[in-house]
């Protein structure tokens, strides 16, 4: 899918260093989506459920290009979803995000280039 993407949030809804969850009913994805805002202000999207245990990555700690799971501290790359720290061993699914005029648009299942 391409085009204009799905408007999922206003940028101001997501404090830096934190995340919010967007319901799969809105995004049409297999899992809810975690919109994660890095400490440089950029926004990224991953499947919300940690690949290790059942935990919401949107409740995790977002910092310097990574999100850390709030339960067992597994770490994932915001850009690619690649797992970067145990105990998780499987990558998270990343989705492309665009910010236009203070609005956040999601492109489900597209990867960022």
């Amino acid at each position, binding site marked *: 899918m391409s085009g204009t993407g799905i408007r999922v949030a206003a940028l101001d809804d997501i404090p830096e260093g934190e995340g919010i969850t967007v319901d799969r009913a809105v995004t049409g994805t297999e899992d809810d989506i975690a919109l994660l805002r890095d400490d440089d202000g950029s926004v990224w999207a991953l499947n919300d459920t940690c690949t290790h*245990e059942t935990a919401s990555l949107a409740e995790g700690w977002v910092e310097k290009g990574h999100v850390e799971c*709030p*339960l067992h501290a597994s770490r994932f790359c915001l850009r690619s979803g690649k797992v970067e720290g145990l105990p998780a061993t499987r990558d998270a699914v990343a989705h492309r995000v665009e910010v236009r005029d203070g609005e956040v648009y999601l492109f489900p299942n597209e990867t960022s280039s």
Partner: protein
Amino acid sequence: MTSTPELAGRAGRPTATPAGPLHRPSELTPTIDVSGLVDADGGLLDRAIFTDHQIYQQELRRVFAPSWLFLAHTDQFRRPGDFFTTYMGEDPVIVTMDKSRAVRAYLNSCRHRGARVCRADAGTTRNFTCTYHGWAYDLEGRLVSVPNREGYPDRFDTADWGLVEVPRVENHRGLIFGTWNPRAPSLREALGGMAWYMDAMLDHDGAGTEVVGGVHKWVLEGNWKLSAEQFATDWYHVNMSHASALMLLAPAGKSPRDEIVHRAGRQYVDPNGHGAGFPVHPKNRFDALAVHQWFDYEAARARLGDARVEGPMTNGHATVFPNFSYLPVNGSVRVWHPKGPDRMEVWAWTLVDRSMPDEVKEAQRLYNLRTFGPSGVFEADDGENWSEVQAISRGFVTNSVPLNYQMGLGSEREDGRYPGKTSELYSDAAGRAFYRRWQSLMNTPAWYEVDR
């Protein structure tokens, strides 16, 4: 601006912990009758209460577990997930603000194999995740994640394995206390007449108090009762133990003024074992100049009354039974954490009025640090005394010679100015009441023994 945490929403009753067929044999918890160790009427004390291991174990069960114990200041919890770890007796606890902004406290021990689930002193978190095998608990104490959950039998229900919660948490003017005792009277009731004296420090102007960031912690050789008792009842030591510090604070080239050395004052004696002593000379205020100049004494007189301003507000010492003490004029607030019969850990905060400008708060902080910080000129004298007393107390002959608490015997009375029973400034009356309370708790089965 700090919002005041809600105080609703806690369990109110003990957390159920499935024990199956486990039952602890009573030989593991022998009970000693302490009637013969404390003579509160005659003012005599057997030194074994400061050194004996069985007595110490019984104290944890019968003095600490059923009593209201100081946990933290409300200022330490501003948003959900803020936490502070401390001890109740020797039990490690986490104090935190849950998602509904209620301050709650939990035993800091994993229900799996017992590791601490929070190993930081203070901070902000979303969950308490055990670093041993990864069981994770939310801010409401629920077990929310168990790695390899499939490996447990069907009857394993995470609802049975949440953190053990401190069933009662209440605050008095920002000071948060907790108790394991589901049937304890309310905190306000347990403080009783002591609250009037505490409010001389906590209620200067209606804006309340806050704490300077950080807690000073230090370890001393010495039984926890030596310091708790001293803060309840002992102005007697001041001129002797702190002679050098008093000389230091006196105007250059002079020794301290006569009215500073020979003080008139009163000592409050609370039936629940609390105590507070304070000189009553109007010139007794004894603090940093910047604080003194900022303070509106007329407003304080209107709010608190002359008796409180000319006594428990301007100077003195106090203990809330069993192990919380404070010095009103320094803003020093501390807990004597027991660490075995021979050792204590002192945890000390500096309290300031929220209404103080920053430079006055800073002056208060520095003044408290210089006098009653870990290396304060007064604190060091006190610690030296307690450790000295403890260090020799294991000697067989030394340990069997009774100690004297007879000063001011029979002097407690209503004086018409200070509420409740008071004695002289120099008196052991509050000390006798402290040990009377201790003896009574030690000889009374606690709620869990009665329920069994």
